[in-house]
């Protein structure tokens, strides 16, 4: 599918927000789903890059992604300007909605760093159905533009920064634990570095709160065919490799084996 770049702005050091015109497809996308973007026509980089959709402007058929420039692919993305054409596969992945029960009216969003983007769309899409509390952790207040979008959708936003430059000093999981002592939400949705997700899964189990997480893994096809993106998922006491791109990226946290 072709997408047309609508905007591409540096919002924080090395982090860009890009609007992409996708027409009618835009409104069909669910939080947790991602786009798989070809970065140029060269064979270097060769593979597409998976990026979560973080915001949708359904009326204008525009989706937004926020991405950090890390290597060749994202560097290419950052060079695109309004009007540039993108080769996109979308929407891919299962979405939070596909995993969570239907009757959700209270969600806590727990995210870390550049893992907050799928949660941003979840907040946008559930803001009228559910009470949302966003508990987000960042390295420092440089990342303010990443949590600001959560403010309009959330009943409450709790920010933790590692250097204490904003909000609470410490880890997002510490803030989560504190909050859970006071109240247990209907469900937690998490996304972030795998170390964070591992503690999140622990804490959720400890407090007995259902918890879904969105995983990241290096991908090939992104559509479920090449089996390179697999992660260990337990069910009925056994584990199997499941495809993050097609069976996920969203799984119940207690089913994920974070061991490797």
């Amino acid at each position: 599918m072709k997408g047309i770049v609508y905007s591409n702005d540096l919002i924080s050091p090395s982090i860009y927000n890009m609007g992409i015109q996708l027409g009618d497809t835009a409104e069909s996308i669910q939080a947790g789903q991602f786009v798989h973007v070809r970065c140029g026509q060269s064979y270097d980089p060769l593979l597409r890059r998976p990026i979560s959709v973080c915001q949708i402007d359904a009326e204008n058929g525009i989706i937004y992604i926020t991405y950090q420039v890390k290597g060749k692919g994202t560097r290419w993305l950052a060079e695109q300007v309004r009007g540039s054409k993108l080769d996109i596969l979308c929407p891919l992945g299962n979405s939070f909605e596909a995993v969570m029960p239907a009757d959700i009216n209270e969600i806590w969003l727990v995210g870390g760093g550049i893992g907050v983007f799928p949660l941003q769309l979840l907040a946008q899409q559930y803001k009228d159905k559910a009470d949302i509390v966003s508990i987000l952790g960042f390295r420092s207040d440089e990342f303010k533009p990443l949590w600001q979008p959560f403010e309009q959708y959330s009943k409450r936003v709790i920010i933790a920064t590692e250097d204490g430059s904003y909000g609470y000093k410490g880890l997002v999981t510490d803030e989560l634990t504190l909050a859970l002592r006071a109240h247990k939400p209907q469900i937690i949705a998490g996304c972030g570095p795998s170390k964070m997700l591992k503690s999140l899964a622990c804490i959720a189990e400890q407090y007995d709160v259902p918890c879904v997480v969105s995983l990241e893994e290096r991908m090939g096809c992104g559509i479920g065919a090449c089996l390179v993106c697999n992660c260990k998922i337990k069910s009925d006491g056994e584990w199997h490799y499941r495809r993050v791109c097609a069976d996920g990226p969203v799984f119940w946290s207690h089913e994920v084996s974070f061991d490797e």
Partner: protein
Amino acid sequence: MNEISMCVDICGVKLKNPVIAASGTFAFGREYSRYLDLNRLGGISVKGLTLYPREGNPPPRIAETAAGILNSVGLQNPGVDAFISNELPYLKQFDTVVIANLAGNSRDEYCVAANKLDKADIDMLELNISCPNVKEGGLSFGATPESVYDITKQVRNYCHHPLVVKLSPNVGSIKDVASAAQDAGADALSLINTLLGMAIDPHTRRPILGNITGGLSGPAIKPVALYMVWQAAQTVDIPVIGMGGIMNGNDAIEFMLAGAVAVQVGTANLVEPMATVRIIDDIEQYMLDNGLKTIKDITGGLIC
């Protein structure tokens, strides 16, 4: 009035065109059916099958390299029985040639599985003796002319379908292993499987792949693959199916000029789900542009 015929005949099996989806990159076709009409393909070589289901290797299983990818999937597959009961009926709905790609850990395993597939409604068996991603067996069967001869001969006993032997590039002489496969009764050859490779993250000082090493595929290996296909085609009398880094019609034509009767497309599917169909269209356009009537007008047509 289109008088072009893209048909090819590989040991009695008719393919409507010379483009086959390569094993391991196309699963069992289901995922791609959303992106293209499977009836358009010359054939589909399914994900490598083993006698028993396999979970495969620990992640990460892919590393991008310059113009290539390393994969270490390690033959994750549901096993031959599940393939025959769950996947084959799905594939048989389509008018395309179904090639079962078979791997194993031991001679016995290969033979028992081949025997099961022999009774199944597949069109061809592709003997994968070149998978670099499994500890026991796999690659070692494909490493020397002697071992290639031996495993081909064994499986031949159980296989009445046309038998395609898929060669490994990780050998000293591709001519010798190609001859060995032919001598042992292969009906056709396919090559190349992936080149052994690895990638390291200098910051963590660890290999990128969970399995440490993996198989290199994609445009990076095309020159090596083309050379090997050219060598093999000059050596054997049986048909050769070429692959390795084919991304577009011109790439496919290069392999056919070097002597391939058909090609397989692997990594390109991961980059662009419609790659096979685009390549078919490209080849047709090339034939039109050059006034060619059949694929035979291309195969082996290298001038040198």
